[in-house]
């Protein structure tokens, strides 16, 4: 029998995590074991340090007890230059073959979680990393953790003989809201877009809702548009679509039948929304959204404004609906999350392919 010592100093943290999983396991129907992710894609935090990980290749979402719910959230600024290079070094790979898929903050501890692919081929390995408030990075061990998995019901329904089914539904975003996990996805075949709603603790039930979005001109509908990124606010889903409208959908309406979203803003052409957060400053709520070509947008939000906003239904010149301002101080922001009540954490891309984690004051 071999004795072993971990190479990394931070593994102690992982051991601490393993010890504390039992309470959550009981509360959330988790079982102890080692989840075998095929991919670590979009991330979201649920209650008590439960991390949801979207795994497109497994057609599943994993709920993993990180045991990380005892920190002092939001007391430090985290700034890590070249975070992708550091991770590449740790996993024994190159920057080019290290892909950061998503970044979220654990609201229970203020620690930052990153989902990573080691490699770009079909055998790329999934890894989760955590950056603590000192700026130390370590792998999140999945060995003997409390976890649960929700598999999506998209296995091939027909007899296909020995042929492999090439259809995959890419999970594009996850959000947890009041006991429900909302999952956005896009198929690599048909162009249908659905929001899935799963109860958590997972109970095997899934409601798939097709969202129709009224596109204004010519009295037309369109359903087949993938949600690029979304967030929940005042029990509404705020969804940004690839063709740039911002749409609201009541969470309570996501029951499995087709429903109508309301377009409350058009955010401009030649643009892809990437990530968004909601925060409060003073007495005002704001939406902050990063985009691939239109920078970071800030928009005032209020429940009455959303409730009473007219759905955009006529010819639009320029941007329309609720207004936004562009935050010129933020450039090339590829991931975004709220670090604490006053700060956001951003993953910022540099021209040399390096990525920096930066703490910024919420604007």
């Amino acid at each position, binding site marked *: 029998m071999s004795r072993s010592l971990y190479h990394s100093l931070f593994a102690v943290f992982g051991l601490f995590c393993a010890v504390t999983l039992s309470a959550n396991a009981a509360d959330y129907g988790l079982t102890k074991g080692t989840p075998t992710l095929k991919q670590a894609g979009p991330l979201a935090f649920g209650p008590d340090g439960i991390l949801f990980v979207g795994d497109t290749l497994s057609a599943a979402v994993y709920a993993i007890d990180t045991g990380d719910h005892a920190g002092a959230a939001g007391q430090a600024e985290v700034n890590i230059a070249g975070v992708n290079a550091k991770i590449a070094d740790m996993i024994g790979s190159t920057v080019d073959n290290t892909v950061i898929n998503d970044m979220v903050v654990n609201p229970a501890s203020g620690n930052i979680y990153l989902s990573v692919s080691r490699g770009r081929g079909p055998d790329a390995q999934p890894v989760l990393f955590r950056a603590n408030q000192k700026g130390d990075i370590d792998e999140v061990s999945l060995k003997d953790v409390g976890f649960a998995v929700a598999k999506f019901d998209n296995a091939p329904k027909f007899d296909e003989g020995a042929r492999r089914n090439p259809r995959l539904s890419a999970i594009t975003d996850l959000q947890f809201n009041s006991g429900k996990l909302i999952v956005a996805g896009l198929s*690599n075949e048909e162009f249908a877009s659905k929001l899935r709603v799963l109860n958590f603790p997972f109970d095997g039930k899934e409601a798939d809702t097709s969202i129709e979005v009224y596109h204004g001109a010519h009295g037309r509908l369109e359903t087949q548009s993938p949600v690029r990124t979304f967030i929940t606010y005042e029990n509404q889903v705020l969804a940004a679509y690839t*063709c*740039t409208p911002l749409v609201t959908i009541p969470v309570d309406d996501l029951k499995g039948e087709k429903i109508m979203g309301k377009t409350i803003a*058009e955010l401009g052409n030649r643009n892809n929304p990437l990530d968004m957060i909601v925060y409060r400053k003073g007495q005002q709520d704001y939406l902050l959204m990063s985009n691939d070509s239109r920078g970071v947008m800030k928009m005032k939000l209020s429940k009455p404004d959303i409730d009473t906003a007219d759905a955009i239904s006529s010819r639009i010149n320029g941007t329309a609906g609720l207004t936004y301002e562009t935050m010129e101080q933020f450039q090339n922001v590829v991931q975004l999350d709220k670090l604490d009540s006053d700060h956001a954490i951003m993953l910022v891309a540099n021209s040399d392919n390096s990525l920096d984690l930066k703490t910024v004051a919420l604007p």
Partner: protein
Amino acid sequence: MSNSKLLRLTSFERFATLIVGLSCLALQAPMACSEEPPAAKRHELCQGVTVALQQEPQPSFVITGLDLEQATSAIKITVVPDDQQRREVPPMLGRFVERDQSVVFEPRFPLSPALEYRVELIGELANQSQSRISPVFQLPKPAPQPQVYVTEVFPSSDTLPENLLKFYIHFSGPMSRGEAYQHVRLLHGADVVDRPFLELGEELWDAGQTRFTLFIHPGRIKRGLKPREEDGPAMVAGEEYSLEIDKRWVSADGQPLKDSYRKRFTVVEPDHQQLNPESWKIETPTRDSRLAVLLKFDEPLDHAMLMRVLSVQRRDGSSIHGKIQVSEHETQWSFTPDQDWEEGIYEIRIATNLEDRSGNSVARPFETKMQERAASQPSTHIAVEFIVN
């Protein structure tokens, strides 16, 4: 090398082993010094401490001259970064274990033949050592694999509708994820069409990464949306276009494609019509044969979905096993059974999300006028019945 020289060297190595043994005593780590070294080439980190890259069963580093605790605190193993100017490199993840009276560093992830790895002494032992080296290791490079090439692009026809929704690009081997949109271009004559594709960070591959789904940006297709209003459709009826796939796109093993690929096509009027199964024709087989049942469509349909969402079953719902083929530029679907047909009534079961090349499905057109919206949910499947006799 002569035998005598070899003998002399061997004698020297014996002498060195003695020194190593003395050094190990000084370090209070009596293990490993008198053991036969494994076949892998050993490098001396400092007097009495060696390391070798062992390839079997999994690549790992075998350290002699230190015990587990010493190795854990005194050995740092790093990848040699591609950017040599970089700051201090953190250690690779992994663990030190005792095995066969040596200390072995097992990397958390498999070592790559494409990379170099450095082993160095750190801490107190490094400070104490008069002369030390930090050897660099690399696994032998495997024989290069044949270069990947584009095998097919669907839709296969050389006339495509103005509101074409997507291309499927098939490759002969697994491709690399992350650079797809840098290597595909839509050309209108010699001009590059500006931002015609829906660029998704996820990149829509199949699990084996041999098929890539390339959507035309829906904002350039749908009427009444800003991208189309401002930039126009990505393609215009009556004009000639080509889809160009650059050979600099790399496969999963890091090699560029064997050749670039170009699909030339003429764009025709947009297709806004819902699929009409009543206009399809069926050719039925005879019993005691393994002839195919054929469905012939009045327009090309989505290749991937034709391969996936149609199946054949008996009237009682039991499945028939067989082989699906799609031909005639995706206007013909055939099913050849594994066993002879028996006399009876069968049906081809078709999911109503089956689409044409413009995203119109059996269930609905791609764009639906609000007043024409169906009040009830369409059924998920239709069945085309046929009789074998």
